[in-house]
């Protein structure tokens, strides 16, 4: 999980263009300025490449917060 957190932080910093961004499990799109449809798909796309996984449509559409994103990634890596 720590590994995921480190990589995911880098992805968020890159996608939002903010090197100081710190993520936490409860963080939702509503709290992060600029987290809109296109940045959302950028995040998904970067995660797919970084972790070598593929998200389903339901996962992409229904994702609630960063914690859930981490769980999905962890489950897919196993």
């Amino acid at each position: 999980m720590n590994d995921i957190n480190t990589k995911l932080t880098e992805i968020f910093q890159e996608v939002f263009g903010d090197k100081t961004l710190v993520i936490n499990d409860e963080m939702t799109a509503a709290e992060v300025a600029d987290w809109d449809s296109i940045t959302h798909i950028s995040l998904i796309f970067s995660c797919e490449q970084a972790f070598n996984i593929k998200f389903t449509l339901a996962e992409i559409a229904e994702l609630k917060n960063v914690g859930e994103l981490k769980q999905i990634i962890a489950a897919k890596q196993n």
Partner: protein
Amino acid sequence: MSKEIPINTILNTKEQDYPVTAAFLAQFFERSTLLLRSQIMFLLTEREAFFWPTAEKILKLNQNIDGNPIDALLEYTVAFLREQIKFLSTGDYRYDETTFDDAFKEVYDNPDVMEAFYLEGLLVTHAFWPIHLDMHRFFEESFLQQLKQEESLGVELGFGHGLYLFEILDKYPKTKALGFDISQYSLAYANKLLLQNGIAADRFDLALGDVREPLSFDDSTLDWCVFAEVLEHIPTPDFALREIARCLKPDGLAFITTAINSNAIDHLWHFNTLDEVTAMLNANNLEIVALKELPLADYDSKSKDPTIDCAFVCKPLV
């Protein structure tokens, strides 16, 4: 993101007049935590008068052919955004002038795309993407209203889902329509959409056809032509436009749309500016009568998406 507005209150007040749309939105907001949410909020607040009746009409057309519109809309949107993100980093569209056959195989002739989400998803974007809703309003006000009440004949090239054909045939009982599309799945979907929504079978004739080939009409024989979101899909846009200009009557009208700096799962012709499009129309014997430029930035100034859609009403240059 726009600020949250009380969705349930809005849906309750609209439920009686627009039951299909209200039910769609209630389910949509339950499912989608993020995708298209701020865009739909925008429609509910800034486009209320046009949005509700248009969404109700489109969702009912789709309901009558047993659709699954929420999934289709989400999947179409995700597929588009994935391609647009690749374009932002590479500057290239998915296909180019030499690879139309790949687009045909992977998209137009592929039921896992066309039947699974493409046709239905694209249909409902005309209500649920602000940029497409505004394009549809331009179609109604600047093109549809201008057609003749008398007996007439027209064609749509690359009709896809068939929404434009429905609008024209529904409003003008004396017009007849022909249609060509390269996809067997578009052909089946649009036939069903028209027939199951009350358009008599003897008023239209849809067939497989390829706009890279000459049109099968004599000069100056068509009263109207629709050519929407096809220019950016074909390796021979100049030729197709010249054919349209040739076949239109001197008082005939064409409705033409395309996208600038906007990749998708099947785009190959990259327009960089509006000027490139207007120059292409003029160079191929079409005079612009009305024009609507729709930059995505007008809807969301912070978005990284550089898409500009544009729509034209044209007449043949004489």
